[in-house]
C-alpha cells in the first residue's frame, strides 16, 4: 500500500505507464475481493467506506426503481448509515417498514415476508449487528426477496473477513463492506452490485468504476483493502475458532464473576469477536472510563455517551430497559487479543463494578 503514496503515484484513469501501474494494482485488489465473496470482478465497486456503500446501495436502488414502487423494508437494528438513509428517503416520499427483532436481536424472515407489498422495491438487512453481534438469517431473507423479485441489500461491514461470505449462497444483490473492519485502511469500502442490478450512482462527475462511482480512485486505500482481504483469507478460519473460544471465556467470566449481569445478543448466532453485556447498577460510561484508565478499550450503549442522550436503538429493540442499556458494555476481540487479555479484563472489570456500585444509590436498594 505504501508505495502508492509516493513512487507509484499514478492516477489509474491516466493512460500513461504510471497510471496503468496504478490501474493494475486496483484491478488486482478488485480480483482478490471478488474471489473472496464469490463475485465477478466487475461486480465490485470501490467506495470511501461502509457508510458510502450503504448510502449508494439504498438511495441508488430507490431512485433507479422508483417507477416500480416506493416501499423499502429494513430492520430496527440497522446501523445509522442505513437507518438515516431510510429516514431521508421517507422525507422524499418513500415508505419504509422497520422490522422488529426478538430478544436476541434476530429478524424473523416471516416478518420480512409479511411486510412485503406490491410497491416493495428493496429489502436491506444487515448481515450481523455491530453492537450485539447477532447474525441474521440472510440467505433465507434473500430467498424470499428473490421469489418476489425484490432487490436485496445486506450491510456486511461487520462480517467481511470475520465470517465466510458467498454472495450466491446469501442470495444478495448488493453488499456493503468497509476496509477498517478487517484490519485494512480507513476510508475505503466496497459495494458488491450483482450484474444486471439497476442502481443510480451516488457520485457524478467521472467514468470511474464503470460510471457507478465517480471520483479519482483512492489507490493506496484500495490496494490496502485487497491486502487486508488476502490476509483475512489466510487467517479467518483460525481466527473464528480462536475468537469464539475467547468470546466464550469472556462472557462466562463476566456472568460468573459479576452479579446482576446479562449477555446481550444471541448466545451462539453471534460474531466471534463480539461480547456485549449489561451490568446493572453501574453506568456504562463510568465503567468505560475506568477500564480505559487500566488500558482496556470498549464501548457502551449508555445514553450518557450518545450525542442524542438516547440509549442505543439496538438495545431498545431487543427489549432492554433504559437502565440495562445504561449499564451496557461492548468488547470487541481481535486478531491480537490473547487469553491473557481476557483474563485481565475479568480481573479488572469486577473491581470497577464493585467501586461504582458502592457509589450507586440503586445498588444499595436492590441488595437490601
Amino acid at each position, binding site marked *: 500500500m505504501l508505495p502508492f503514496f509516493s513512487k507509484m503515484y499514478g492516477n489509474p484513469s491516466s493512460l500513461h505507464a504510471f497510471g496503468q501501474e496504478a490501474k493494475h494494482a486496483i484491478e488486482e485488489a478488485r480480483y482478490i475481493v471478488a474471489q473472496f465473496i464469490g463475485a465477478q470482478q466487475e461486480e465490485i465497486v470501490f467506495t470511501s467506506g461502509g457508510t458510502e456503500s450503504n448510502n449508494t446501495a439504498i438511495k441508488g436502488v430507490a431512485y433507479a426503481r422508483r417507477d416500480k414502487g416506493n416501499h423499502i423494508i429494513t430492520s430496527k437494528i440497522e446501523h445509522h448509515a442505513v437507518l438515516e438513509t431510510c429516514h431521508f428517503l421517507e422525507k422524499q416520499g418513500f415508505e419504509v417498514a422497520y422490522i422488529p427483532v426478538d430478544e436476541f436481536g434476530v429478524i424473523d424472515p416471516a416478518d420480512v415476508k409479511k411486510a412485503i407489498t406490491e410497491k416493495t422495491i428493496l429489502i436491506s438487512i444487515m448481515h450481523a449487528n455491530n453492537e450485539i453481534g447477532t447474525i441474521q438469517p440472510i440467505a433465507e431473507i434473500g430467498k424470499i426477496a428473490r421469489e418476489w423479485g425484490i432487490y436485496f441489500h445486506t450491510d456486511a461491514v461487520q462480517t467481511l473477513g470475520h465470517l465466510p461470505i458467498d454472495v450466491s449462497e446469501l442470495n444478495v444483490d448488493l453488499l456493503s463492506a468497509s476496509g477498517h473492519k478487517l484490519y485494512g485502511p480507513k476510508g475505503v469500502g466496497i459495494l458488491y452490485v450483482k450484474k444486471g442490478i439497476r442502481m443510480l450512482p451516488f457520485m457524478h462527475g467521472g467514468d470511474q468504476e464503470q460510471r457507478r462511482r465517480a471520483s479519482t480512485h483512492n489507490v493506496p486505500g484500495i490496494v490496502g483493502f485487497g491486502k487486508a482481504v488476502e490476509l483475512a483469507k489466510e487467517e479467518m478460519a483460525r481466527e473464528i475458532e480462536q475468537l469464539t473460544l475467547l468470546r466464550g471465556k469472556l462472557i462466562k467470566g463476566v456472568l460468573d464473576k459479576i452479579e446482576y449481569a446479562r449477555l446481550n445478543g444471541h448466545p451462539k448466532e453471534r460474531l466471534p469477536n463480539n461480547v456485549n453485556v449489561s451490568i446493572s447498577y453501574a*453506568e456504562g*460510561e463510568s465503567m468505560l*472510563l475506568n477500564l480505559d484508565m487500566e488500558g482496556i478499550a470498549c464501548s457502551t450503549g449508555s445514553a*450518557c*455517551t450518545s*450525542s442524542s*442522550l438516547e440509549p442505543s436503538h439496538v438495545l431498545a429493540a431487543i427489549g432492554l430497559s433504559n437502565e440495562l442499556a445504561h449499564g451496557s458494555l461492548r468488547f470487541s476481540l481481535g486478531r491480537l487479543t490473547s487469553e491473557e487479555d481476557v483474563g485481565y479484563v475479568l480481573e479488572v472489570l469486577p473491581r470497577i463494578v464493585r467501586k461504582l456500585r458502592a*457509589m450507586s444509590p*440503586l445498588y444499595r436498594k436492590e441488595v437490601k
Partner: protein
Amino acid sequence: MEYSEKVMEHFRNPRNVGEIENPDGVGKVGNPVCGDIMELYIKVKDGVVTDAKFKTFGCGAAIATSSMVTELVKNKTIDEALKISNRAVADALGGLPPIKMHCSLLAEEALKKALDDYRGRISIPASGKPVRKLQIG
C-alpha cells in the same frame, strides 16, 4: 468529547462518597435527560453546612459534579449554599463538554433539594435560632 483534567481527577478519586447517618437534609434527584440518579446528604450546624456526602449512578460528569458540589458546599452558610449554581460546579471542574452540562444541573438540583429538605425540617422561632421540628411518625 473530552473531559478536563479536573473532571477526570474527581472521577478517579471522588470526594465524600457515601451516606450520612441522621442527615439534616437529603436531596434525591433523577435526571430526566439521561437517567442518571444522585442522592446528596448534608449535615448542618448553626446554619452552616458541616458535612456533605453523595451517592450517584451516572457517567463520569455526573460523578465528578457530585464530588465537586459536596466540596463546594462544605462550610457554607445555608444562604451561600443556595447560591451554588450548576455553572459554578462546572467552572470549578474546569468546564464540562457542552453535552454534559445537564449533569451539573443534577448536582445543583440535588443540593437545592437537600437544602429545602433541611429548611423544611426546622422552624425559625422568635429567637431567630433554628430548632429542629419534631419528626412525626
